[in-house]
């Protein structure tokens, strides 16, 4: 019976990144994916003729350029296009736009507050300083602070040196950034509610916390440390939808000799004498491998795919307590024409950016209150984009694909499972909000895909539909992610590794967990990592 050098459970972006690096190191690698397509939460599927949806993730910034280059993703079709800005619509019939041009951005803010217009430079300076501190850490394995191995000591020293290199004021800012609420953080810079709401959205996306919850300032930072071709903090569309990322990864993987099996759901990991030996598929088929890497989140991996008796008690308890709460949903809409927003001038670049309707911190926090009560938000927070304003490949000419990321959506409704009626009610809350700002919106809808945490968990496999495979709060970051002592992609089971967003540096379509896990695996196998670029310099 064939034994693969490595079996990757799950063909999401991190699983594929991991597979690519291992295959290119000379291993014989198999990716098993339960769906009939690869991509995990980075997919583009045609659910109605002529329209491609970015079904889950919908914009790109965090994906590491070093990985794109190493794995030759442009050659396999990946193109990322920066988008143009965005806006928050205000209930008084106006809007607050974000423009790429620095002076236009300032003038736009000055429409609301001259002070805030000039405060933006300070805000942006402080956030950029923090991003420059964190960015180089993304592609390094977090040190184990309890270990005395030279590598861990070296990494701890590196962290310490970086931190010591900061001025006292910078250190204070770093600690505050990692622990404060986004609301309090923004209060230090801005006075205008809608301007705060405009920035706060990056602090709550994908997170079961409100803007006033401590820890949300870091979530904002997490969304700022990406880039589009060197433009740090910029976001873009993957041409052809986010599936283009995983499509390119799969093509790169196959071109280097890798094997993918779709429609192959793993039932459990085969473990013998404390060591992973392969996987058993849902149909009972056994596949053997010298090592197994799970792209699934830490809960799914260790509470569903590995038998409890193989795991230490404390580890299990920590996995159970790992916060991976469902907080968001997705509504993907095919439109037969571009929606109009009377508040926006017809030639506004905002159509080609991300749009929001939550114009105050209070509304944002109220939306979270509904989540706490076990309901989807009556007045939800939407991150809405129309990628087809820049990407001609996703819909026929003149027609459009609209992606709405929706928050908050609880993992269970009033303590019970989601029903189809709940799902429809959730969708209606979204459509109603858009229609309020865009007359005739309903008439343009050709088709709609509605994904509550129920659908996301069922189709993508993310526990509770949490898009980050675990909250990005400070207690679950660095060497604590996902479980203290297991932040270096290894697990209590020999030969079983983790490579999903549950591991450092965390979620988003970043690829860094998959890459870093591959580096650790190759180290264990005493194989070269010379095909893996180190993080680009931050100068």
């Amino acid at each position, binding site marked *: 019976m064939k034994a693969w050098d490595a079996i990757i459970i799950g063909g999401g972006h991190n699983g594929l990144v991991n597979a690519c690096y291992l295959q290119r190191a000379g291993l014989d690698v198999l990716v098993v994916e339960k769906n009939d397509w690869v991509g995990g939460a980075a997919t583009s599927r045609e659910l109605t003729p002529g329209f491609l949806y970015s079904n889950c993730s919908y914009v790109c910034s965090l994906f590491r350029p070093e990985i794109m280059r190493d794995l030759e993703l442009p050659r396999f079709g990946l193109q990322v296009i920066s988008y143009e800005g965005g806006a928050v619509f*205000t*209930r*008084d*019939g*106006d809007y607050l*736009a974000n*423009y790429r*041009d*620095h*002076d*236009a951005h*300032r*003038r*736009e803010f*000055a*429409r*609301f507050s*001259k*002070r805030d*217009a*000039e*405060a933006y*430079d*300070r805000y*942006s*300076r402080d956030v*950029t*300083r923090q991003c*420059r501190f964190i960015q180089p850490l993304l592609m390094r394995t977090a040190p184990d602070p309890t270990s005395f191995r030279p590598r861990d000591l070296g990494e701890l020293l590196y962290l310490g040196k970086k931190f010591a290199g*900061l*001025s006292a*004021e*910078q250190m204070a800012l770093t600690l505050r950034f990692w622990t404060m609420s986004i609301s309090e953080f923004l209060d230090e*810079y801005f006075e205008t*509610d809608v301007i705060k709401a405009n920035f706060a959205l990056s602090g709550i996306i994908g997170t079961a916390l409100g803007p006033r919850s401590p820890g949300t300032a870091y979530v904002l930072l997490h969304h700022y440390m990406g880039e589009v071709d060197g433009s740090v903090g910029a976001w873009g569309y993957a041409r052809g939808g986010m599936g283009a990322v995983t499509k390119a990864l799969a093509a790169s993987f196959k071109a280097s000799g890798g094997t993918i099996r779709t429609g192959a759901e793993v039932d459990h990991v085969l473990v013998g004498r404390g060591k992973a030996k392969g996987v058993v598929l849902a149909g009972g088929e056994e596949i053997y491998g010298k090592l197994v890497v799970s792209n699934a989140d830490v809960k799914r991996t260790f509470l569903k795919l590995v038998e409890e008796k193989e795991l230490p008690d404390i580890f299990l308890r920590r996995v159970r307590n790992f916060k991976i709460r469902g907080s968001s949903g997705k509504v993907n809409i095919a439109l037969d024409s571009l929606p109009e927003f009377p508040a926006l*001038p017809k*030639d*506004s*670049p905002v159509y080609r950016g991300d749009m929001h309707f939550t*114009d*105050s*911190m*209070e509304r944002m926090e109220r939306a979270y209150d509904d989540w706490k009560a076990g309901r989807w938000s009556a007045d939800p927070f939407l991150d809405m984009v129309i990628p087809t304003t820049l990407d001609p490949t996703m819909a026929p000419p003149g027609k459009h694909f609209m992606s709405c990321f929706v928050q908050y959506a609880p993992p269970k409704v009033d303590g019970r499972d989601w029903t189809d009626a709940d799902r429809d009610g959730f969708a209606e809350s979204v459509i109603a909000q858009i229609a309020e700002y865009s007359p005739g919106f309903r008439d343009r809808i050709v088709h709609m895909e509605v994904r509550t945490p129920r659908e996301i968990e069922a189709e993508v496999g993310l526990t509770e539909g949490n898009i980050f495979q675990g909250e990005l709060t400070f207690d679950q970051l660095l060497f604590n992610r996902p479980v203290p002592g297991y932040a270096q992609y290894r697990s209590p089971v020999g030969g079983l590794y983790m490579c999903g967003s549950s591991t450092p540096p965390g979620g988003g379509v970043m690829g860094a967990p998959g890459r870093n896990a591959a580096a650790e695996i190759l180290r264990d196998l005493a194989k070269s990592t010379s095909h893996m670029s180190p993080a680009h310099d931050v100068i």
Partner: protein
Amino acid sequence: MNHQPTIKPSKARTAAQGHFRTLRLGTPFQPRIDALARTQDWYNWAGYRAPHSLWDEELEYFAIRSQAALFDISPMTKYRVEGPDAEAFLDRVTLRDVTKLKPGRVHYTAWCDDEGFVLDDGTLFRLSPTRFRLCSQERHLPWLLDSAIGFDVAVEEETESIAGLALQGPTSFAVLRDAGFAGVETLKIFDLAEFPHDGGTVTISRTGFTGDLGYELFVPAENALSLWDRLMTAGELRGIRAIGYTALNRARIEAGLIVANADFTTEHAIRADRLRMPDEIGLGFMVDLEKGHFNGRRAILEARARRKLRHVLVGLEIEGNIPAEHAIVYHKKSQEVGLVSAAMWSPMAKRNIAIASLTRPYGDTMVEDLWVEIYAMRELQYQKLMKRAKVVARPFIKLDRRTANPPADF
């Protein structure tokens, strides 16, 4: 509850929506400048479309030194600071002693954060006992407003509503006099006064950025064009020409003056090690330890006492005639000790001059054996030159006509 009222936005706010269609604004003088812009050579000055040159950058420079040159300074950031505590507030924010700045006077100053790092430099105009105008390169409204807490003072940004012109050069006085600004001859260097213009007033100060005889004029935006026309008409026989920034920049280098974000970084620098204390960029003379507390005082004192000042800004004279712009400065041709931030061949001094930031003690106590490495690109090849540099005093040129009283009539 914090529900926002569902009132309509103000007319001014919605009227301003369309700004995204004009990313580079014209200044109030734009119609006149556009008409003279033969080179169409523009750059972005703080969101405004400003000319690098208008017809010939070299001849524009000579207009400054030989006749009168008109340069649009409207994009400069301007704050109006007014109130019973305006003097005390500015004394607390800036380095120099504002109580010594009499109404009708201007001084060049700078301001620091609590760590003693320079946030920006600028000119402070005292228009009356309780009213000031602060002009700067960067924007600092939050800093100024936060600093104003506890003072009875209003700080208002007025960049767009006030237009500004620099009229510089030997005939600038004659132009103003011929334009009918009676009494302008009484202005000594750094004096200012108000003069009637077009039903309103224009503030004229004997200041400038060229090291030459010159004036700066501030006027409400709506009176800008008539002021331009008044000067151009009066100056016709005095050789008045409009100029762009390249010419002005040459004049300011000769005058040894530094520019924010070109020779030193400001409030919004991202790399913390790029920040500079006043003593590190040649502005130590502004620091007034006799006056009361001001932002950065403690840190500056400590840095001086503990010799923590790491940099020094100097004037260099470099052998040869190839400008050393952005060249690296070496000690003994081998050890890197600094960077040239501005450089040119000076037509007035007939010397190759530069402004450079060096790491102490070089440029401070060690001034011997300094060199600059010039990479001169000539037809797709770098001509690498190692040239000797001598630390010299700034300004590189000193023109008696700048300060002569009464100003000379040409």
